[in-house]
C-alpha cells in the first residue's frame, strides 16, 4: 500500500462523505424540528433515485438537470407525508413510542413493496449521463466526476441551508419551533405549517442527494435500506438534530468507510461504519456533537 493509494482513497472517501452528509441532513433537520426519526428516509432517497432514472429514461433529461425537479417533487412528497401520516402519529395517546417508530417504518415497508411491485426488483442504471464514468485528475489523484460534483452540490446545499436558517423568516420560524413549539404558537406561527415545510425541506434535500446518487449507483427497491442505516449513523455521530453535525458526521463516515476498505475485505465495508456508530453512542449516548 503506497502513500498514493491512501491519499487516493481518503480523497474519494471525503467526496462520498459529503454526499452522505447531504443524504443525512434532511433526517437531522426533521429530528431537530420535532424529535421524530423518519424511518422511511432511505425510501425517500429510493424514490428520488427512481424519479431521476425515469426522467432520464423517458425524457432524456440528464440527472443534473433533473435534480431541481426531483427535489421539488420530494418537497411536496415530504409535506404530504407529514400532513397525512406524521401529523396524526405525533398525536397518539397510547403507545406513543411505538407509534412514532412504526408509522414511518410502515411507510418505508410500504414504499419498498410498491417499488418492487411497479418497478420490479431489477437493478437499473443510468448509462449515458454527462458525468457518468468520467474521472478527473487533480495533482495525480483521480477523482470520479459524479462524486466530485455531488460533493460540490452538498457543500452548496449546506451553505444554502445555513443562509436559509439564519437569514430568512421561515428559517427563523423553523429555529424558533425547534426551540419551543408551544411558545411560537403564542406569537401566531402555525406549528403545523412549519412542520410541513420542515418535512418538505428535509425530503427535498434527500431528493437532491438521490438525483446525484442515480448517476453512479444502481437503482433498485432496496437501495434505500443500506443508505438509510448510514444516514442514521451520520446523524447520530453529529448528535441527533444538529444540521451541521450531520455535515461533519457525513465526512467522518466517508473517511471511516475509506479506511475500512483499505484494511479489510470489501465485504466487511459496513462493519467499520456500524462499529463506529456503536463505539460513539456507547461512549457518548447522545452523539458526538449532541448536547448531553
Amino acid at each position, binding site marked *: 500500500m503506497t502513500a498514493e493509494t491512501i491519499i487516493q482513497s481518503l480523497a474519494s472517501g471525503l467526496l462520498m462523505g459529503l454526499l452522505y452528509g447531504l443524504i443525512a441532513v434532511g433526517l437531522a433537520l426533521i429530528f431537530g424540528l420535532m424529535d421524530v426519526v423518519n424511518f422511511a428516509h432511505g425510501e425517500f432517497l429510493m424514490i428520488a433515485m427512481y424519479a431521476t432514472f425515469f426522467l432520464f429514461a423517458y425524457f432524456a433529461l440528464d440527472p443534473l438537470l433533473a435534480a431541481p425537479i426531483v427535489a421539488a417533487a420530494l418537497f411536496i412528497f415530504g409535506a404530504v407525508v407529514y400532513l397525512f401520516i406524521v401529523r396524526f402519529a405525533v398525536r397518539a395517546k397510547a*403507545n406513543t413510542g411505538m407509534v412514532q417508530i412504526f408509522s414511518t417504518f410502515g411507510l418505508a*415497508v410500504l414504499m419498498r413493496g410498491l417499488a418492487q411491485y411497479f418497478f420490479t426488483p431489477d437493478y437499473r442504471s443510468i448509462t449515458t449521463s454527462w458525468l457518468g464514468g468520467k474521472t478527473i485528475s487533480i495533482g495525480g489523484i483521480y477523482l470520479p466526476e459524479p462524486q466530485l460534483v455531488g460533493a460540490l452540490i452538498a457543500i452548496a446545499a449546506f451553505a444554502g441551508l445555513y443562509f436559509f436558517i439564519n437569514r430568512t423568516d421561515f428559517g427563523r420560524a423553523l429555529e424558533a419551533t425547534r426551540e419551543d413549539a408551544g411558545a411560537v404558537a403564542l406569537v401566531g406561527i402555525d406549528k403545523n405549517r412549519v412542520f410541513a415545510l420542515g418535512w418538505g425541506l428535509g425530503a427535498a434535500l434527500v431528493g437532491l442527494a438521490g438525483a446525484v446518487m442515480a448517476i453512479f449507483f444502481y437503482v433498485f427497491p432496496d437501495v434505500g435500506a443500506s443508505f438509510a442505516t448510514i444516514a442514521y*449513523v451520520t446523524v447520530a455521530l453529529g448528535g441527533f438534530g444538529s444540521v451541521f453535525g450531520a455535515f461533519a458526521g457525513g465526512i467522518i463516515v466517508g473517511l471511516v468507510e475509506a479506511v475500512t476498505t483499505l484494511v479489510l475485505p470489501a465485504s466487511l465495508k459496513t*462493519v467499520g461504519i456500524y462499529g463506529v456508530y*456503536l463505539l460513539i453512542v456507547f461512549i457518548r449516548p447522545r*452523539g458526538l456533537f449532541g448536547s448531553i
Partner: protein
Amino acid sequence: MDKAFASRRRRDLIVAACITAVAALVPLFVKDVYVQNIMVLTLMYAALSQSWNILSGYCGQISLGHALYFGLGAYTTALLYTKFGVLPWFGMLAGGLVSAVIAMALGYPCFRLGGHYFVIATIVIAEIALVLFQNWDWAGAALGIDIPVRHDSWLTFQFTRSKLPYFYFALVLAGIAWFVTWWLEDSKWGYWWRAVKDNPVAAESLGVVVFNSKMGAAAVSAFLVAIGGAFYAQFVSYIDPESVMGFQFSLLMALPAVLGGIGTLWGPMLGAVILIPLTELTRSYIGGSGRGVDLIVYGGLIIAISLARPQGLVSLFARKPKPVAAVVKEAVAS
C-alpha cells in the same frame, strides 16, 4: 391483587387451554400440505412475536434486530449437529443459552441508550452479525449450511413425509411462549417491566432496578426467539445468513405484536393468526414472492394500526370499563 384481575387471569388460562386443544385437532381434518405449512409458520411467528413482545412490548425497549437471536438459534443447532453430531434438542437449548448470554452482553452497553439511539443500535448490531456470518468460512459463509436429512425421527427432529410433527412442536412452542408471558405478567418482573416502560425515572425512584429489569427481559426474549430459530433450521433443513438473520425476520417478529397489540398477552397471537395466513395467501394469489405484495400488505397494515388503533386489535375485544356509578354501587353492596 384485586379479584377482577385474578379472575381475568384464570379466564385467560382456560381460554388458552381450550384454544390449544382445538388447534391440536385441526390437522386431523386439514390434510392439505400447503395449508399445514401455513399453520406451522403462523404458530412459529406467533411464538416469535410473543417472545419479542416481552422485551419490546412489556419492557418497552423496541428491538428491530431480533433476527440476530433467531439466526443464532438456527446456526447453533445446525453447526452443533453438522460439525459435532450433537442432537438438535441439545442444540436448541444451547442456541437459547448462547442467545440469552449475547443478549445480555449487548444489553450491557445498549440499555444505556435512549429511544431512537437504542432502536438504531439493534438494527446495526444485527446487520454486523449478518455480515460477519456471511464472511465466516467455517460456518459456511454466504452459502450457509445444508442439514443432511437421514430418516424421519424424533431423535434428530427431522420429518420428510409429514408436516404434523413440526406442527405440534410449533404449537407447543407458541404455548410455552404464551405461558411464560402469562406467568411473568403477574410476577414482580412483569410489574417492573411495565414500570420501566411507562416511566423509567419514577420506577427507579421507587426501587425498581431499571437496568436489571431490561437485562432480564432481553435474556428471556432472546432465549425463546433462539428456540424458534432452531426449530426453523430443522423445519427448512437449509440455512444461510440472509435466510435466518436477515432484516425481514426482525420485521416479522415485530409485526404480529404491533398489529395485535404491543405489550399485551394476546396481541402477538391474534396478530400472527391474521397476518401470516393473509400474507401467505396474497403472495400465492397475486404473483410469487419478489413482487413485494407481502411488503405492501405489511406496510399498509402497520401504518393503519399505528394511526388508527395504537393499542392493537385486541383492544376491540376489551370490555368497556364500567361506569363509575356501577362500581360505587357494587362497593357499597359488598
